């Protein structure tokens, strides 16, 4: 889907051709060259298009993201423009004031970049490596689970539940992440488990 010439690229190239031909026919050869010089290159010509859907509400409007660099080629890709997908049956290219500003979400100054830890009683976050953060989480989980896991209830029935650690899942993650999350949470025996559908 990213390989095809985008509609914008096509229109951009065709439009430039029409203008050049018309001006040339009128005998404005030199002006034509100067004019062509003066026109700013269409900013999306050298970008990579990727189809996505708006992450906000559940209308799930189609969007097209334009990036400098192509992730598929292993390049670093910076998204420089996002617009509505005219092919999408629901939104047909339109976006609301939230969807139209998606680029500023991607580039928000308060996007998180590094794992952080706040120690008990502290008034600040400190940077921590992924390895240290994840090992710490696994240790906290295991210590709590080992201490509080309930294998049998008072009637001797096997219940295998863990209710001292809970998990709130994100209803903006993908179904695939949801399924993986389900596996990880349930296999640990967690029952305190919910997502935004509740609220």
């Amino acid at each position, binding site marked *: 889907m990213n390989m095809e010439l985008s509609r914008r690229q096509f229109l951009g190239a065709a439009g430039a051709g029409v203008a050049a031909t018309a001006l040339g026919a009128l005998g404005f050869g030199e002006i034509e060259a100067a004019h062509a010089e003066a026109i700013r290159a269409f900013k999306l010509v050298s970008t*990579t*298009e990727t*189809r996505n*859907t708006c992450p*906000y*509400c*559940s*209308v799930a409007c189609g969007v097209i993201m334009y*990036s400098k660099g192509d*992730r598929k080629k292993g390049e670093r*890709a910076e998204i420089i423009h996002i617009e509505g997908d005219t*092919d999408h*049956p629901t*939104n047909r290219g339109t976006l*609301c004031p939230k969807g139209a500003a998606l680029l*500023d*979400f991607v580039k*928000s100054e*308060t*996007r*998180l*970049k590094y*794992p952080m830890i706040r120690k*008990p*009683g502290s*008034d600040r*976050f400190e940077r921590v490596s992924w390895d240290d953060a*994840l090992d710490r*989480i*696994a240790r*906290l*989980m*295991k210590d*709590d689970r*080992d201490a509080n*896991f309930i294998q049998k209830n008072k009637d001797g029935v*096997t219940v295998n539940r863990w*209710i*001292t650690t*809970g*998990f709130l*899942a994100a209803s*903006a*993650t*993908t*179904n*695939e992440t949801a*399924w*993986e*999350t389900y*596996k990880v949470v349930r*296999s640990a025996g967690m029952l*305190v*488990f*919910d*997502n*935004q*559908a*509740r*609220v």
Partner: protein
Amino acid sequence: MTNSWTDIKNTDLVVIMGGNAAEAHPCGFKWVTEAKANRGARLIVVDPRFTRSASVADLYAPIRQGTDIAFLLGVINYCIQNEKVQWDYVKAFTNASYIVKDGFAYKDGLFTGYDEAKRDYDKSTWDYVIGVDGYAVVDDTLANPRCVWNLLKAHVSVYTPEMVVRICGTPKDKFLKVAEMIGECSSPSKAMTSMYALGWTQHSKGSQNIRAMAMLQLILGNIGVRGGGMNALRGHSNIQGLTDVGLMSNLLPGYLTLPNEKEVDLETYMSTRGFKPLRPNQMSYWQNYRKFFVSFQKAMWGPAATPENDFAYDWLPKLDVSGYDILRAFELMNQGKMTGYFCQGFNPLLAAPNRKKVTESLSKLKYLVTMDPLDTETARFWENHGEFNDVDSSQIQTEVIQLPSTCFAEDEGSLTNSSRWLQWHWPGGTPPGEARTDNWIMAQIHVRLKELYRKEGGAFPDPIVNLDWAYADANEPTAEELAKEINGKALATVYDAADPTKVLAEAGKLVPGFAALRDDGSTSSGCWIYSGCFNENGNNMARRDTSDPDETGTYPKWTFSWPANRRILYNRASADLNGKAWDPSRKVIEWDGAKWAGYDVPDIAPSAKPADVGPFIMNPEGVSRLFSRGMMRDGPFPAHYEPFESPVGNLIAPKVRGNPAARVFAGDFEQFAETASAEFPYAATSYRLTEHFHYWTKHVRVNAVLQPEFFVEISEELAAEKGITKGGWVRVWSKRGSIQAKAVVTKRIKPLICDGKPVHVVGIPLHWGFTGAAKKGFGPNSLTPFVGDANIETPEYKAFLVNIEPIAGPVA
């Protein structure tokens, strides 16, 4: 949604009640505009505020928040009294004719079997009379006084237009006009659609709000038809998916349910999930429950789930209460009974009710882990932000680990929208800094925990160490691998049950759909209702074919719609008992003498004869339910209950406060304002703005500029009464908290006259906190009560009591 956004163009009447699509779902609302412009459809909006949806409505009717059931039962009463009933549909496709057990009754706001101490019902009488043949007894003439129709007729008779006006504050002429316009849609050639969202769910009787409208839609014959349906607009982009995949305390994927501790083994568990048909010939599709359950267990534990160990039944945790929802989680935390909590893309400090209680609860945890692309308030609940988060960090001993995750633009996979379309998306950008995908983060947590158990042993490691984790890279399963697992695989060759020579799926292949799933361990599937999403035809969720034969709005080849790529649920009900479309211009599927066929995938066996098999195949009755038996905790019919905090008493049942079956924790009742409180006289409600999405877009520069500052909205009348000026500062407080805001004084909110007394409404938008690019502010959850819906525990955000006064502005 039973239908889809694009199907709304087929409607004749749109009723927006309990939602505000023009502002909260603007690009979906376009389809209402389309229906109005191209079909002459009309729009009714019923809301406490004159919203932007109302501004383009043909009829706007104000209503006091929390009284929707009285309004809707009033409309049902009108339809019954005025013969606005699609009789052929009601008689054939609903349980109107079913006879209800003697002993069932409703009196003084309560149904039979109420236990005040438990705030719960003994529901044994809420059921059908079962005949000697084992089937429910029916009376097709509807003459029996104990048939559902006659019980319903008596139940709604108290909701006269006069009573509706007294309770709801809706002017009588407006109510009658709404009822008349809705009543017209009882014609088989007219369809009405219901569009609703959190304006209906966020009440202590939210489920019954929706049931009341569903019952009305059945009486009008509008379920299963093009342009009809019950259309939940829903919230987040994948709130539908997270519900479908079952990320809730008591759910397994695909609306299977987690066992409770009384279900000691697989056979006991299955004994209440057999779903024997209640009428002859009915499909009762849940008869296949065991296939879906066993396939799920195989997707979880692979070769370790065997017939000998009941497919690892014991490895599922067993519930001792109905569920550990978010309210119960914070209640337990507040009691000091929890150690750790994970918030994956969830900001409960702003999203859970009674923020003071939330802060105190989080402060009692040993550890909190957040995963989010943005810097949330929850991750910084321990940080002092003056009046906006007035805490003493040194007194909070919670260890907090904040993990940076990718956002949509950097992630791959499918989201399920409110049309039930599973739409695949692709990553286009490189994540900032060290942000990682949720798939990687969750895998790391599992892999590291598993490693600790392997090394050290510990409490019952079996379900963790045996979790099926056969991904190419155990450190980060790909979206495709997970999608295939959700779809399901044939672990041994699967043959057609009707024709054993026919192979449905070779061993090792993806199953074509859920019809190929088996209960003997020969198939796996993570979420049966999604089966078919990624099969041997490829990734159907990535399909981008925009064809739409005859422009029905179906788009059958665009991505994948669950279940089985069906676009309109219950679409068999779009045709009459002979299989002919009720409205030929709105055909979905029809019976051609041998099979069902048309624009959509039939929601019935293709060879099921129309007169024999009912359209509502998930119900053992084969028909839909006007009387919901014991399925709902608070009654088989909806009944009017006031919010727990209400400016007026319950006029139908003066002794009943709130929803009598809603769970209230000890200590929370004392934090409710009394009915008609002089201390808290105003009816508050929460809502969203077009320019913001929850607490995300305050991090987005453009949106922070468009709507920079927290405000509350009040009427000109209340402003005059309290001496509040336009744009002046006010303090708003409830029994649980206090906030400061600028006042927006508008004509959009007007006082309502309820039972002769004026009720002022205070509107509180929900988009501000103390992180991000917008100005710091508050949210409604600083004020709202800690109580949820009786059935699903969604907090009561839409109706509560406050007081308001003008104040000098803060020093700038």
